[in-house]
């Protein structure tokens, strides 16, 4: 053993030396990504998503780099939750990506922390055009007069349904139908087909937001919650009754099939979600899925608005001009829409909207749905959520689930939510 032992040790040492040397090389060779040399500028672009979005984005970046040979774009992506962990860490450390994907719930939050670039100056300088956006989307990323996010694709809340289950029950949801029609339909489906009418909307913040908007309120005001404990008690009582009577799916079953959706697993005949998420049901489930309008209170107002993913710049970027040019290209260039399709929602500018004609039925359904609500004139505008809205959304979902499982009473749950929201919103 003696000789082999010492040989082992020698080769171990050699390997250690080599590895330390490589360490040094790596450190020397790859400095920070945003340095500029020889007239080329490198910008970092981060977003959340998975493999298929990555492939599309890589293609659009190739197009961009071809048109702007002096700008190099380095991408970085993770799933949603990991993206925000990383973003938070990097932004807190003063090193956020130059340009990144963003959503409405984070605008005020990161504006308060001076993380976001006000793009108004770039619009004035002519590096970014705010013309040609659909249905009020140009104002979507504005907070207190600052332009903090540019919409890349729009979406709207919708009711995804199992069309066969609805047809068997003899229900045809159409624009202007009411919550009473909707609840009657759920009961009919439940009684006749031994599945729940809906997976259960009580924890979806965006659905409750619509219900409140139909009553002239909203989930959030600029700084606070826009509803009272009594409002929420009523909504959750109604939800809990729905669970007990079986018109909503058994929350235990829904828990067991996660991360699959209740609708695609056949537990229910419908659920509320963003219209561009409807793609996943066809991929996951066996049913014949379609989009139905949001029920209303007065037979007219749905409270809907076009939401959107956005691109934002970092306030610390050394290359605001290049960031603006990049965003401009991504939202206006028709060729980009041809590549991205409806991956991030329906393209937000008319130039891009017209450039992509969906060929599959799901995307056609989304297109038809958004055209329908736009022409029906139900679309409203939305105030950007207060800082802490993301925390409220998570708490709303979690506590609603506790209530529907029966581990917390409605009253206790409402109190808990308001107390957590108070901490999160700093009110």
């Amino acid at each position: 053993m003696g000789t082999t032992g010492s040989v082992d040790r020698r080769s171990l040492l050699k390997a250690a030396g080599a590895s330390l040397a490589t360490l040094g090389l790596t450190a020397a060779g790859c400095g920070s990504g945003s340095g500029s040399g020889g007239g080329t500028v490198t910008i970092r672009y981060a977003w959340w998503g998975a493999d298929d979005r990555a492939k599309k984005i890589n293609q659009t970046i190739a197009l961009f780099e071809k048109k702007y040979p002096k700008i190099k774009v380095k991408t970085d992506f993770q799933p949603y939750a990991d993206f925000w962990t990383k973003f938070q860490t990097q932004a807190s450390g003063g090193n956020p990506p130059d340009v990144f994907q963003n959503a409405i719930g984070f605008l005020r939050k990161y504006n308060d922390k001076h993380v976001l670039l006000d793009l108004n100056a770039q619009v004035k300088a002519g590096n970014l055009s705010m013309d040609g956006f659909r249905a009020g989307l140009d104002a979507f990323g504005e907070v207190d007069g600052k332009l903090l996010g540019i919409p890349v694709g729009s979406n709207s809340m919708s009711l995804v349904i199992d069309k066969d289950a609805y047809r068997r029950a003899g229900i045809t949801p159409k624009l202007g139908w009411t919550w009473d029609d909707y609840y009657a339909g759920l009961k009919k489906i439940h009684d006749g087909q031994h599945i729940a009418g809906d997976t259960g909307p009580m924890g979806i913040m965006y659905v409750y937001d619509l219900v409140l908007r139909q009553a002239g309120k909203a989930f959030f005001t600029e700084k606070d919650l826009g509803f009272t404990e009594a409002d929420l008690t009523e909504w959750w009582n109604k939800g809990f009754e729905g669970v007990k009577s079986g018109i909503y799916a058994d929350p235990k079953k829904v828990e067991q099939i996660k991360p699959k959706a209740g609708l695609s697993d056949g537990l229910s005949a419908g659920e509320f979600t963003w219209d561009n998420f409807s793609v996943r049901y066809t991929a996951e489930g066996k049913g014949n899925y379609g989009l139905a309008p949001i029920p209303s209170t007065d037979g007219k107002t749905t409270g809907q608005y076009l939401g959107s993913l956005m691109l934002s710049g970092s306030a610390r970027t050394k290359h605001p001009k290049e960031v603006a040019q990049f965003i401009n290209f991504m939202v206006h260039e028709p060729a980009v829409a041809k590549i991205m399709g409806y991956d991030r929602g329906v393209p937000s500018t008319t130039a891009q909207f017209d450039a992509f004609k969906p060929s599959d039925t799901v995307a056609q359904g989304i297109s038809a749905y958004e055209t329908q609500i736009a022409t029906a004139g139900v679309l409203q505008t939305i105030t950007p959520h207060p800082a802490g809205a993301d925390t409220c959304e998570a708490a709303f979902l979690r506590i609603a689930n506790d209530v529907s499982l029966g581990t917390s009473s409605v009253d206790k749950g409402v109190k808990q939510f308001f107390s957590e929201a108070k901490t999160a919103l700093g009110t």
Partner: protein
Amino acid sequence: MSVLTAYRRKSAGSLAWHIGSLAVLAVVLYPVLWVIGGSLKPSSEIVGSLDLFPASPITKNYTRLTEGIADIPISTFFVNSLFLAVGSVIGVLISCSLAAYAFAKIRFAGRNALFAVMIGTLLLPYHVLLIPQYVLFQKLDLINTYTPLLLGKYLATDAFFVFLMMQFMRNLPRELDEAARLDGCGHLRIYWSIVLPLCRPALITSAIFTFINSWNDFLGPLIYLNEPDKYTVALGLKMFVDQDAVADYGGMIAMSLVALLPVLAFFMAFQRYLVDGMATSGLKG
């Protein structure tokens, strides 16, 4: 007792041992079998499925991996992970064994206090250290390199391994280093020629754990690496599923099995050294 009956009794015992071991193993490996079965199912049938194996197995989940993820060949992630894992193993073996020797065999002033500090570093959840450490490495301009992920390994920051090696060193027969000391050997000689060879089981154990920890590490690579082609397997595994996308569970499960192979290979290659510990290392003389 004849040789034959002794032999029979021995083989009967052996049979019972194997049956017992396999029974325990069957329970323990059931979930692993489920993963293997899952990798042969289409994505839409994986979640919530109660069957161990599909009626008609498919190989698409594996062939799909050859296309790469996000335009990056799978092999890139494996090479990156291997580099980090091997680099970590070397660092931990050197730095932690040195520190362990100091705590176990050298009587220097302040040893007790430093030992308490070392144990103290084990006790704080690392999440609260993430951001200060990030800021530190950023000031050193080392973001988007592998240095933040490796440096600590060469500086014995993982108290777990220092403590593990130390426990083994303290259990070595004391006569050995006393004798060496009387022969005039210094600490370096004793460390290198006596203690390290005798601690091989502890070193191999540390090597295996370090390799696996590095291989599975997620948060470190997540915050320090900014380009997908520098990513590790653990990050690559997360590229199959996102809330905005149609989840590719099949690809994810297949890749998690493929990702297991290098670790398993590392374990298989080194576990045999676990066998020749003290008992066979020529100590008897």
